[in-house]
């Protein structure tokens, strides 16, 4: 369930915390395991993280369901996380969400048939002076327009 490479990455996080406090690495461990397992966390994945960090399964489950960045059902290869909070809303985020839905033929929360993309409406991502914006992977795309969205979508493979 957890590859050697993932274990190495998790171990690097564990080293940041005092001895016996390896549970501090749980948030990153879940992200690392999620990335390795089609971008979502199964019950087995959560159990594997719990075992690896010597935590009760329920404690890991709590973290995995409390924070927003974990998926519990299949997600696309790329998740478009589009902000719809106030500064983005004032700058037309709702129209861009409609545009994305039309263009991709899905509603927010759904995955395209080819499994490539899903769209998630999220709360403020802290880039308000670049509104409207969304995030794909590690990258922020700001000052979005329909034309810019077309160009970005064309790069997603």
């Amino acid at each position: 369930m957890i590859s050697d490479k993932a274990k190495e990455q998790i171990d690097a996080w564990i080293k940041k915390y005092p001895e016996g406090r390896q549970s501090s690495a749980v948030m990153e461990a879940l992200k690392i395991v999620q990335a390795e397992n089609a971008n979502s966390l199964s019950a087995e994945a959560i159990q594997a993280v719990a075992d690896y960090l010597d935590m009760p399964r329920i404690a890991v489950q709590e973290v995995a369901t409390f924070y927003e960045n974990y998926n519990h059902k299949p997600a696309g290869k790329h998740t478009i996380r589009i902000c719809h909070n106030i500064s983005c809303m004032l700058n037309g985020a709702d129209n861009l969400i409609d545009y994305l839905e039309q263009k991709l033929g899905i509603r927010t929360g759904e995955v395209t048939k080819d499994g490539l993309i899903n769209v998630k409406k999220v709360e403020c991502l802290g880039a308000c002076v670049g509104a409207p914006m969304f995030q794909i992977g590690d990258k922020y795309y700001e000052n979005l327009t329909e034309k810019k969205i077309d160009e970005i979508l064309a790069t997603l493979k």
Partner: protein
Amino acid sequence: MNEVCFKNLNKEECHSLKVYRESGGYKVWHKILQGEITPEEIIDELKTSGLRGRGGAGFPTGLKWSFMPRQSDGQKYVVCNSDEGEPGTCKDRDILRYNPHAVIEGMAIGGFVMNASVGYNYIRGEFMEPFKRFEGALKEAYDAGLLGKNINGSSISFDLYTHLGAGAYICGEETALLESIEGKKGQPRFKPPFPANVGLFGKPTTINNTESFASVPEILANGGQRFADLGVENSGGCKLFSVSGHVAKPANFEIPMGTPFKDLLEMAGGMRKGGKLKAVIPGGSSTPVLTAEAAMAMTMDYDGIEVAGSMLGAGSVIVMDDSTCMVETLTRLAHFYYDESCGQCTPCREGTGWLYRVLKRMTDGDGVPEDIDLLLSVQDKIMGNTICALGDAAAMPVESFLRNFRSEFEYYIEHGRSMIKG
């Protein structure tokens, strides 16, 4: 403008150790390592500077640092709160991207003052670009022998690590943030005990905002009085303001405290496409909304914004023009707090849901005249009745939107549609 956290903003590679050092960076840290400054002197300078917590609460930083039991045995921690997520706020992201060494030096100085040999910078999980930038700066600092154990042969040790969030606004609350570093759900702790006594891993801990830490080296390099003189009485120094919404040139501006709002609006290019100013949220979504008249008469400092009827918060200025429907805007904010309530305190968990559902009913065209009193009653029952400030943050916009723009709500209820958008 741009005299403290942003002073190198226009230089190439402004985030690099080289540029930071060329502008006097790490000089204070070197003095500390050579035993030339005492913790007491630093606390005095910070008190003189008038620096107040830049994350939103505005608590005097010098005083906060003096609360730590520095003489007590055992591990102590300094923690930087880079979990920026208050709608309208995006300044810490730019500090991490463009001046990460000021945060590192500020945290190291804090570690020295409070006798804490370990620090954590909690960066929100979505901020991967700022995270990588900060990690790069950390590596530079370690390679240059500025961090670590017995730095430069001194008795001073300071190790600094990053911790990433995973998407929860509540972790910006300092005790929720500590829970999160411990690998738990981010639910705020009951206080007392305060973190200065029982903090991270049960040890004395001081948590400051990114901008607060990043301001410290500059304050100490040039003296607290100079920083204080940049601002006005009771609001020392410069502050970063994120100006977003219906302005022509939205951006972050580091300006002296006490600058008139109308000047800040001008810096942001004025209103967009000839729109007319209607409303301003001056300190982030949690602070009360102001009418155009109140905003135009306001100065950007703690007291000036309070006199106008709101709060400075994190300096997140959301500008709205006359095309804005206040009912729909408040509904969006209510959804945010409903989504982000951690669920621990009943008034907040249930109340934020009530606020959102009643407003949603209104914008769906199904509002009833009693809804306005119902909203006021619900917000009043949340206010002051929760462990942390998220409850108040959800309540305050409701009261202020209804007070300042009540006729729009009445219109929406009566006609089932927006007075502004038709």
